[in-house]
């Protein structure tokens, strides 16, 4: 969520909210967070803290605000995402310009990274380092960067300047791919970073506003771009692009209709999944055209992840109350369970 975009309208408008969720999660004594689902909740917009919800693998145990419970402090304002190493979780608080590093299984705090970040978005580990996309100052379109995190002392040890609006980040061996959604504006680039030299070795052009990426087992990088929205008065279509990670060339582009703006690209069981309007579609990896095979209809997700035959979709409700996570069986398309999580649930991860 491009959170600060709406902060000003909110601030000035002085929004009032309405309500949609009122069921309570199941409260049980604290357990180990080793096997289960982690939900990062952005938290309220302009004042407050994000939280992390733990849900056990069998969906029976729900623990709210596990960072606060474990460490007796707040995560920070607008928890954008969580990135992982083998044993650690890096929880990115965007407006607070802060990353809290915890043991991913106990959630005990290891360190806070507060220096060298400016509007941090997403974390990935590659080649023994952490890489974090940063918008920089949102008024400056040329100061965007990827921060390099030293994973021994948890400090920012360097930066890699990149083009406007780095967002999603993904690693293939020692190469890091950054999708440039465009921060407050729009961009259409993928940066290819060599993590040995820590340089951008190539910048590829894909569809407008690339929002999510997946790597398949054959080494292809799939990039889903939503296209420019109508309010830009230069509306463009969404595009699904396939990138060869050996040559780092775009091998194919599958365009949507000009008013179709897909997001949330997922890969599970050899198929791609994405969200478009109120529908989840499936796309074969081998297809040379958009199959538009419907999986779920009449759903609206704030974020969605497909994992081991299940679809996990979040609903932020009115953005001023606890949201929900609904788990579906992809094969039967039936909802298995709905669980109350935190305010504006934006990230879904598996521990």
């Amino acid at each position, binding site marked *: 969520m*491009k959170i*600060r*975009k*709406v902060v*000003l*309208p*909110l*601030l*000035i*408008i*002085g*929004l*009032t*909210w*309405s*309500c*949609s*969720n*009122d069921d*309570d999660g199941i409260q049980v004594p604290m357990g180990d967070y080793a096997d289960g689902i982690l939900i990062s909740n952005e938290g*309220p917009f*302009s*004042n*407050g*803290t994000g939280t992390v919800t733990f849900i056990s693998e069998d969906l029976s145990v729900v623990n709210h605000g596990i960072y606060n419970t474990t460490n007796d402090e*707040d*995560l*920070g*304002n*607008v928890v954008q995402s969580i990135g992982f190493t083998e044993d650690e979780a890096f929880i990115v*608080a965007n*407006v*607070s*310009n802060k990353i809290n590093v915890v043991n991913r299984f106990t959630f005990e705090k290891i360190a806070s990274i507060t220096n060298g970040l400016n509007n941090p978005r997403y974390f990935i580990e590659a080649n023994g380092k952490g890489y974090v996309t940063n918008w920089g*100052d*949102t*008024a*400056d379109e040329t100061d965007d960067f990827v921060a390099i995190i030293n994973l021994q002392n948890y400090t920012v040890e360097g930066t890699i300047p990149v083009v406007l609006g780095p967002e999603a980040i993904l690693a293939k061996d020692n190469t890091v791919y950054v999708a440039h959604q465009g921060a*407050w*504006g729009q961009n259409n680039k993928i940066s290819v970073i060599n993590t040995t030299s820590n340089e951008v070795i190539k910048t590829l052009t894909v569809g407008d506003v690339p929002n999510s990426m997946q790597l398949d087992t054959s080494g292809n990088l799939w990039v889903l771009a939503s296209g420019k*929205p109508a*309010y830009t008065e230069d509306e463009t279509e969404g595009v699904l692009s396939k990138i060869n990670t050996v040559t780092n060339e775009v091998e194919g582009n599958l365009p949507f209709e000009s008013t179709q*703006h897909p997001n949330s690209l997922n890969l599970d069981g050899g198929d791609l999944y994405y969200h478009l*309007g*109120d529908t989840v579609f499936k796309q074969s990896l081998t297809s040379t055209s958009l199959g538009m095979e419907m999986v779920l209809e009449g759903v*609206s997700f704030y974020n969605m992840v497909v994992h081991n035959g299940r679809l996990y979709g979040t609903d*932020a409700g*009115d*953005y*001023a*109350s*606890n949201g929900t996570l609904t788990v579906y069986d992809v094969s039967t398309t039936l909802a298995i369970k709905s669980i109350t999580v935190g*305010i504006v649930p934006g990230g879904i991860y598996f521990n």
Partner: protein
Amino acid sequence: MEKKQILLFFIGLLSIGQIFGQKDNVIVLDEVILSDAKLLHFSKGTKVSVVRDSVQQKSGATLTDLLRYNSNIYFKENGYGMVSSASFRGTNAQQTAVVWNGININSQLTGQTDFNTLIPGNYGDVVVRSGGGSVQYGSGAVGGTILLNDSFKFNDGWKNSLRTSYGSFNTSLLAFNTSLGKEKTSFQIGVNHIASDNDYKFLGTDRRNGNGAYDQLNLNANVGFILSDQQIVKVYHNTFIGDRDFSGTLTAPADENYRDLNHRSLVELGSFNEKRIARLKVGHLYERYRYFPNKERKEFSYGQANTFLANYDYKYQLNRITLNGLIDLSTIRAKGTSIENANRDFVAGTFLLSHDLTDRFNYGVNLRKEVVSDFKSPFLFSLNSGYEVSKNYRLTINMSKNHRIPTFNDLYWTGAGASGNLEVLPEASWQLELGQKLRLKNITLLLNAYSITTDNLIQWRPNEQGIWMAMNVQDVSQYGLELGLDWKKKWGNNNVVWESEYSFTKSIDNSTDHQLLYVPEHMLRSNLAYQYKKVVAFCQLLYNGSVYTTTDNSDSLPSYTLGNLGLDYHGPDISGIKFILGVKVNNIFNKSYQNVAYRPMPNRNFQIQLITKF
């Protein structure tokens, strides 16, 4: 100043009945001098209270500070001195109208007023009119209306007042007011400057309010001429210039800055005789904000609106019946970073009737219809009645339909991730109120019960594409009870005034029955002043109940009790110059509290003040 007067004027919220009670003595000229005579004739079944001039001198500089301790309005402040919005009787920020000399000055862009951008110091009394008032005061007069009226004093000589104060966080105030009242001419100018580093401690942390400094300049200038025994002309002007860094929260630092600029000008020509008063007003309102997301950089976003208005008001007295017809014309032009040139033209016709059926029984019928260029506005009315059961017991009832119109942001906002919605409808609100007032020798007891139902509440929500839009998504209801108790006692050189008010407020989402955000169910305030000869000691107490911070009522802010303590010494006259020296301790319990989540308010702080009158 005489000792008696010192205290008589000290404490706020005297009933309007006390100032306007002897209607027979109010001569026509006195009425014409008033900038808002609607209050005099057409609010008789309504709860109206006056916060006295002298209370202001003890209540900080802004309208937020004044009303926090002298009304039952809950203020949501994004840190002390920052954006401050009102919740009056459980309604939202757009449902309280602020009226300047009879003109509604809520922002055309946001529909609300930031109560930290209004400096009441030069207006004299501030009037709080509870309940619906859209017929008289237009959009947003749902929970209530705050009236700021300039006063014109003819035959009053030359008077000057200089108020200086200094206190914690390098907070300084300088206010100078001069007025000259001759037989046919009245002139007044008031200037206030308030500045503060505002770097108070966040209690319980090692942090301070690092980006909260503010600097504000306010000017009021008014001139009036009595042209003949049938004509008067008055000119009003107010300019406010505000420069604030916006405070961060407990979880995020801030580097923002926000600048306000407001100009308000009004020319009024009045023509009158014993039976009729005709007034023609022509005015211009200008509002502009500039928001710097990073104050170290030059980029900013802005919004501005120009309102040109004309208003013709004809009042006729027919024995015991007062009739008043008004026609309002206005044209509003707004633009900004997120609003391309947008215009609105507006005509409103209002009819007001008040009938004193007997000396003890009055009723009023008020009607209003607006025709607006960019949406359909509902027909509005109010019915009210007052009955004096006995000499010291009075009953009032009123019923009204009020509205809150879509703002320019609601309709025309264009920007990344958010969009106005031309389909949005005005909010329509119905309400009923019963009031009782019992006045005994030393005690005044007030009891008001009300109920409000609002349809089509306008809220910003994301649509299917995730674009935030204004929508009519909710129906809400408020009901509540207000109990006021004033007590006065004098003996020897001692004089005590104690005034308290408790309010119970339910404000619920009709579809979920949850209490709305940031509405305390319970509030209690109590102000006590004790005078002995030339010394006045006073204390202000405020209990603010818990408020919910999420719409599913899953999270809340705790309740808190605040106390302020002050001491004033009224010095002897020195060659016609009067001095009042005061000291005040705010938040004497050093309570850590927030009225918006994660935005702490100040710790215990001190202030000294010198008022010189000559």
